[in-house]
């Protein structure tokens, strides 16, 4: 059953998707496409280089080459026993990313759980709507002090700040997604006397899935921002801490190296997210392509 499953839709999706893709990009050859995509990054690097050579910027801006070399020195190492990873990776990168992912994971659990409960009940939605709007509009970095006060200084205040800040888009999107599942599907479930846990797991959750994923994507981008903000004060490690400490030591190459790593982190996390989304929401991509 499982082995036969992918064969049919794979064949159909390949045959329907391939011509569409060719039509859309048909005017450009592959090398031309890659060349076009490289133009903007190259321009940025050139502008960066020009800035590093200027009188005003030269003091604070290293050349791109210096910054990349510094990033390599800090985050990588030639030592196999360290898995070729540098000191900053262990001391700052991994703790930072762990806190961001922990905060995000907690936000997903709370946001999706609460969102489903609220989405299923118009009464609860109406009751908590003002509170949700209040929480969403609070500029959460302003609460960092409160979180330090509440949870001391270790990882906890940082993780909870991330969770508190990024839970809102997930919560909103889940409520919306649950509502979008639709009355007819709910009626069909009622007619066939589907047990409640199956309605939740096989109808409500997948039906709300596309919106939930959209919320998580926003939350993921926010969690990286909050990760940095939470480390700007009262920290002993982390990429945010590293941004501050390199500046204090006038190590501008190091400062730019951290920025490079942050940019790479954002790109990689987005890529992993898209991979997961493609797997989980394969049906949704097909269904929307069909109706558009």
């Amino acid at each position, binding site marked *: 059953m499982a082995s036969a*499953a992918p*064969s049919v839709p794979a064949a159909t999706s390949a045959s329907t998707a391939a011509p569409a893709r060719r039509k859309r990009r048909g005017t450009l050859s592959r090398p031309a496409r890659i060349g076009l995509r490289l133009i903007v990054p190259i321009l940025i690097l050139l502008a960066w280089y020009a800035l590093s050579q200027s009188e005003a910027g030269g003091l604070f801006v290293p050349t791109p080459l210096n910054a990349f070399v510094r990033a390599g020195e800090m985050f990588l190492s030639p030592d196999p026993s360290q898995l070729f990873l540098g000191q900053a990776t262990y001391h700052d990168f991994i703790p930072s990313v762990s806190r961001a992912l922990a905060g995000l994971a907690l936000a997903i659990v709370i946001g999706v759980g609460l969102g489903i409960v609220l989405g299923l009940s118009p009464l609860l939605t109406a009751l908590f709507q003002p509170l949700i709007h209040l929480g969403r509009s609070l500029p959460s970095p302003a609460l960092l002090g409160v979180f330090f006060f509440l949870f001391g200084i270790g990882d906890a205040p940082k993780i909870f700040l991330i969770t508190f800040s990024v839970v809102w888009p997930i919560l909103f999107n889940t409520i919306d997604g649950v509502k979008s599942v*639709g009355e007819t*599907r709910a009626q069909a479930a009622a*007619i*066939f006397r589907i047990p409640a846990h199956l309605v939740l797991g096989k109808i409500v959750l997948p039906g709300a899935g596309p919106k939930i994923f959209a919320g998580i994507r926003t939350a993921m981008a926010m969690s990286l921002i909050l990760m940095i903000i939470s480390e700007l004060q009262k920290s002993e490690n982390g990429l945010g801490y590293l941004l501050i400490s390199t500046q204090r030591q006038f190590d501008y190459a190091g400062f730019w190296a951290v920025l490079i790593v942050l940019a790479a982190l954002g790109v990689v996390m987005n890529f992993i997210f898209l991979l997961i989304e493609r797997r989980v929401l394969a049906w*949704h991509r*097909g269904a929307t392509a*069909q*109706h558009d």
Partner: protein
Amino acid sequence: MTEHTSTTTQLPELQLDGISKSYGDNLAVRSITASIPAHKVSVIVGPSGCGKSTLLRIISGLDEPTEGTVTFEGNPVHGVPEGLAMVFQDYSRSLYPWLRVDKNVAFPLSKLPAAERDARVAEAIEAVGLKGREKLYPWQMSGGMQQRVAIARALASQPKLLLMDEPYASVDAQTRADLEDLLLKIQRKLGITVLIVTHDIDESVYLADHIIVLSTPPSVVAETIDVDLAHPRDHFSTKTHPRFVEIRGHVTQLLRHTELTGGAA
């Protein structure tokens, strides 16, 4: 139990007694009394907005009437009873687009052992002519085929009473004719009781053994008609039969009359 039902086939499967439903001050249906005979196809036909769908929701137990009682197999209906299945008009909203065809059909059978479930799913899919398409997603199919999936899903639960709410209103004419014949074939084979709601007069006469004509809202039963056209029916000879033409004319006149008099008895 089965022997018992066979001796009581003359009793109505479904009995509506004085069903009224109002939404606030707005009376949708008024004092509907009707009997739906077992092992037959009954059709409720009426003008648009006459509360047919409201009535079907009440019969299915999805909604409670303001007044009156629904009795299914001798028991008053409160909540969706065992042995009832439904096909909705809007197949794209009633099927689950994240499940493949076989999983959609199997979904109501979650309580059954896997072997029996697989057998029932295969049988239902075969009955609606979708064999070989089990692994497609609904959105990869035409509207008519999606509605076949919805019918298969209803059949797989082996209902005694199959309710259909404007089942063919969203498909093209040729598909509609095919699906009407498919329904008659399946009903003759399985002997289940079918209750269809439609606004289409041709369809009501073609499918029905028994027609309940509703008036404009607040709807009352204008007339019930027994359709004595022979089985098996087909779209050419049945629809050109003088008796078909006669009944169709009669129903048309009834509906026009109720529209002119505003449904007031």
